[in-house]
């Protein structure tokens, strides 16, 4: 017997469905007519003849059904039919359908939106040629626990020439410059890059060309501009290539325009210039050891990260001998670019949120499964009739699955719309500095994900009713009276398990949300070391060609003008208040022959005399700067508490001397004249690093942040007067980055706030769904047990007993879920503990609060059905069946 011929016939059957159906009808009709004729001949009357013919033929419909199943590819055919039938039944119970679709659409939508973020930020390959080969290379200093330090140009040259694992390496360094044009000056971001960076990434300019290695070597002033800069500055004009822009007062010729989508690392720079534009390039090029450069490399094909790392470690050891003593004991660390873009914490947070949203989906599916279980119990009769009409058991199970799949697909379509909205919301919230967030959108992988979770949800939802139904059908037919007893037990057991699952998942989410909430509070309550209220923050820049004395004078007069404004309490200046990562630098303490040189991570800034008063940082010892600390007076410094403790532990640092660089360097000695409180300038969650400040007058920086403490609740209202005051001193001074200090500080919290609010949202939804789940279950269990309750009351149970019985049933379930959930939360907490701040993953307060909340919600959800159960009239209940 040929399997293929059956298959071919079946396939043919599928296409010839209509014709074959008609032929079968004809054949049956002919058969019946012949039989009737024969019966008439045998002497029956017409009615009898007809009846006898039909009886001897047997059921026509079941026969046709078997004929069809045989004929067509039973599955495909049946599926189409199942779906048609499913749509019909779902339409018949609009309440059930609407609530299920709403719940599932929300869950699928949230899930899809979250996945689109995960996909864009973590999963999708970077938009460069063979992105898996791209890595970042860092100078590693194990003794100082620094893994990712910048490197000196000399070192990178050595790595590049000695390594065989790398096809190429390129350096880059982001910074900012003043762009001057006819009427105004402004600060723009710039990246200094080695000319081979673009070919290394596999990126071509959209127009023009990239500067060559020779041009860079000759320090020609050439620049590439971003697509955005081209649009805003040149209106997308063709003449842009070849035009000049004035950066820091020096003309640069534009040689190329980069494609619109180009973005490297998190740099969204306007201008890209040769790396040789670095100030004092010739000197810095010879420096060995730590330096200013970020390094990106491309691995040779078929070279693994481990091989590259091993080779670089060997090179690092070889280079040791050529390095100055203070630069020894370094390593080189190789990190994939994709891991570099999104740090481990953001990664973990994204996975956590994705996990959370999957929990919500699971709870939603559980709830809908529970609902359809309850519904399937009341549909028993309908299904019994279908079975009697010849539907086989697998057919009925398939039917139930088709129903839940149809439900899920409908929800999925709606869910995609929800996801579109969700993506808008997420983009609007701008969750901190997540790399590549701009790439978020509904693309093929995201839609694929939506479809996958849709189908999975459909199967999950349909499975429980299908299983109970299949089990029920095994019992002999004709036991109508058994309704709600034997089958009900199986249904109820599954539904109980579902409710317990819901509670367990909800608890895990709630604990997570609680811990994150407490972390957020802790971060918000961290003392930043200054008072940001009512402080206006403005960036100020002075022309590059100004002399130090002129600059100091300009700053002094600006501060004078600003402080004289009504509404200004005091004003101060600092290079920049909020800072990023800081490299390790050499520093020498002491003097008089007993000097100690060491490397540490510290921050150096220039501040005006009134700076600390303006931001409200307390003086712990010594004095603030004064007008006495001018350019010609001895060099003095104020240090923060962290630096005092680091350099002179247990001693009074006032009067101590230190200098930057190694002991034999010719830099000047500073005398410590004051110690101030620590300021958290890298972010509220980071321990303050050692910081030193020198008088602005002794070393005026080209860029400065002006901080103005006002007497107004909205310091931004001062802006007009402030601008006028600055203009009175320097007509063209660019003012930019105007904001309040509170807002800048708030920026530190965006990502954490985003994660926390999202998780809180998810867990509240989860809790509500769990509550609805237990409410529906208890309600249903009372409805099916009305008779039992009636009997209990008839034999003397009091209303209170019934109430307790119902409540205890609900509480037993929720407590089981609670215990399971707490165990789960304890296990998962450890994995997520790096996301916490100021609270441990096993924080008892959070666990207790969450447990109480859950019990309260569960009790409330059981209360109403329990009240109803109390009011059951025994007589009515007993009459019911």
């Amino acid at each position, binding site marked *: 017997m040929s399997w293929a011929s059956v298959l071919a016939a079946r396939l043919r059957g599928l296409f010839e469905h209509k014709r074959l159906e008609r032929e079968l009808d004809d*054949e049956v009709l*002919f*058969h019946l007519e*012949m039989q009737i004729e024969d019966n008439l001949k045998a002497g029956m009357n017409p009615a009898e003849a007809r009846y006898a013919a039909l009886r001897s033929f047997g059921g026509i419909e079941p026969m046709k059904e078997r*004929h069809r199943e*045989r*004929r067509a590819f039973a599955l495909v055919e049946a599926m189409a039919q199942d779906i048609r039938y499913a749509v019909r039944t779902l339409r018949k119970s609009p309440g059930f359908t609407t609530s299920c679709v709403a719940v599932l659409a929300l869950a699928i939508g949230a899930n899809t939106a979250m996945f689109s973020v995960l996909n864009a930020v973590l999963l999708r390959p970077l938009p460069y040629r063979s992105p898996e080969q791209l890595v970042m290379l860092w100078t590693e200093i194990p003794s100082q626990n620094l893994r990712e330090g910048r490197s000196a140009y000399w070192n990178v040259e050595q790595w590049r020439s000695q390594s065989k694992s790398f096809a190429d390496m390129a350096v880059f360094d982001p910074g900012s410059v003043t762009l001057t044009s006819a009427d105004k000056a402004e600060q723009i971001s710039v990246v200094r890059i080695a000319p081979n960076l673009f070919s290394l990434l596999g990126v071509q300019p959209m127009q023009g060309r990239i500067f060559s290695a020779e041009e860079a070597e000759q320090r020609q002033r050439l620049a590439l501009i971003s697509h955005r800069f081209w649009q805003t500055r040149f209106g997308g004009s063709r003449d842009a290539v070849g035009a000049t822009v004035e950066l820091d007062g020096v003309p640069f010729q534009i040689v190329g325009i980069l494609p619109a989508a180009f973005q490297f690392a998190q740099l969204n720079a306007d201008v890209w210039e040769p790396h040789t534009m670095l100030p004092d390039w010739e000197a810095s090029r010879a420096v060995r050891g730590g330096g200013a450069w970020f390094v990106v490399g491309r691995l040779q094909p078929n070279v693994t990260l481990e091989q590259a790392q091993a080779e670089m470690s060997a090179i690092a050891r070889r280079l040791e001998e050529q390095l100055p003593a203070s630069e020894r004991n370094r390593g080189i660390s190789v990190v994939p670019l994709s891991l570099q873009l999104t740090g481990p914490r953001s990664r973990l947070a994204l996975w956590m949120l994705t996990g959370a949203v999957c929990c919500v989906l699971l709870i939603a599916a559980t709830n809908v499964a529970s609902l359809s279980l309850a519904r399937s119990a009341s549909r028993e009769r309908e299904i019994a009739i279908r079975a009697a009409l010849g539907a086989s058991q697998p057919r009925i199970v398939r039917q139930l699955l088709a129903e839940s799949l149809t439900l899920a697909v409908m929800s999925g379509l709606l869910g995609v719309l929800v996801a579109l909205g969700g993506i808008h919301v997420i983009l609007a919230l701008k969750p901190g500095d997540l790399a590549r967030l701009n790439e978020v959108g509904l693309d093929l992988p995201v839609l694929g994900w939506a479809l996958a979770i849709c189908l999975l949800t459909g199967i999950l939802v349909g499975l429980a009713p299908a299983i109970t139904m299949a089990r029920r059908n095994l019992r002999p037919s004709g036991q109508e009276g058994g309704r709600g007893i034997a089958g009900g037990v199986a249904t109820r057991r599954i539904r109980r398990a579902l409710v317990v699952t819901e509670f367990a998942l909800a608890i895990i989410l709630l604990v997570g949300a609680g811990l994150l909430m407490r972390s957020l509070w802790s971060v918000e309550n961290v003392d930043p070391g200054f008072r940001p209220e009512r402080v206006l923050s403005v960036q100020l820049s002075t022309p590059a060609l100004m002399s130090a004395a002129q600059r100091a004078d300009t700053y002094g007069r600006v501060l004078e003008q600003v402080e004289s404004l009504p509404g200004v309490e005091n004003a101060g200046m600092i290079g920049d208040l909020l800072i990023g990562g800081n490299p390790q630098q050499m520093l020498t303490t002491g003097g008089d022959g007993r000097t100690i040189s060491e490397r540490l991570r510290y921050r150096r800034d220039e501040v005006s005399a009134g700076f600390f008063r303006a931001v409200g940082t307390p003086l712990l010892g010594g004095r603030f700067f004064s007008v006495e600390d001018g350019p010609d007076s001895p060099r003095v410094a104020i240090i923060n508490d962290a630096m005092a403790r680091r350099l002179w532990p247990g001693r009074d640092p006032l009067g101590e001397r230190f200098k930057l660089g190694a002991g034999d360097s010719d830099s000047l000695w500073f005398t410590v004249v004051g110690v101030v409180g620590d300021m958290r300038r890298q972010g509220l969650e980071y321990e303050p690093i050692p910081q030193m400040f020198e008088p602005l007058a002794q070393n005026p920086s080209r860029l400065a942040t002006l901080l103005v403490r006002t007497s107004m609740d909205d310091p931004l209202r001062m802006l007009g007067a402030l601008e006028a005051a600055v203009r009175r001193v320097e007509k063209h001074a660019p003012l930019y980055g105007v904001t309040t200090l509170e807002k800048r500080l708030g920026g530190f919290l965006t990502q954490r706030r985003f994660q926390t609010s999202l998780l809180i949202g998810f867990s509240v939804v989860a809790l509500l769904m769990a509550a609805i789940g237990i409410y529906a279950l208890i309600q249903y269990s009372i409805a099916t047990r009305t008779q039992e309750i009636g009997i209990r009351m008839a034999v003397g149970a009091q209303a209170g007993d019934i109430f307790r019985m119902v409540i205890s049933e609900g509480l037993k379930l929720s407590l089981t879920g609670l215990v399971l959930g707490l165990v789960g939360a304890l296990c998962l907490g450890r994995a997520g503990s790096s996301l916490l701040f100021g609270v441990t993953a096993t924080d008892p307060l959070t666990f207790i609060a969450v447990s109480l909340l859950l019990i309260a919600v569960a009790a409330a959800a059981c209360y109403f059905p329990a009240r109803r159960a109390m009011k059951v009239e025994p007589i009515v209940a007993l009459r019911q069946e």
Partner: protein
Amino acid sequence: MRNGHADKADVLQGTLILLVLRTLEALGPLHGYGIARRIEQISREVLQLNQGTLYPALLRMEQEGWIASKWGASEKNRKAKFYSITAAGRRRLAKEAEDWRRMSSTIERFLGLDPGNMAEERG
């Protein structure tokens, strides 16, 4: 309802195939009703044929290639579907018939033994 036919056995699916093939071999092309009538006549009403079950069986046999079908005119010049046995069908019939004979003779022999003999043979 079932009790009224207690003395008639239902036609088993496998048996039905044998009966149809044999009928077609003996009588040549026949329509469905003719096959049903023939089976009932030959079995002298001992076998209870639910006539409807014949058609899915016919379809299956046609799919297996044991029989072929063709629309034609009936005795009273009405359009009807005629089934005829194919070469593959004849081979199948031979095999089925052989199987059936072996089976029935085995059972026959089994039923002919008396319990004492059975015990002896087993020993």
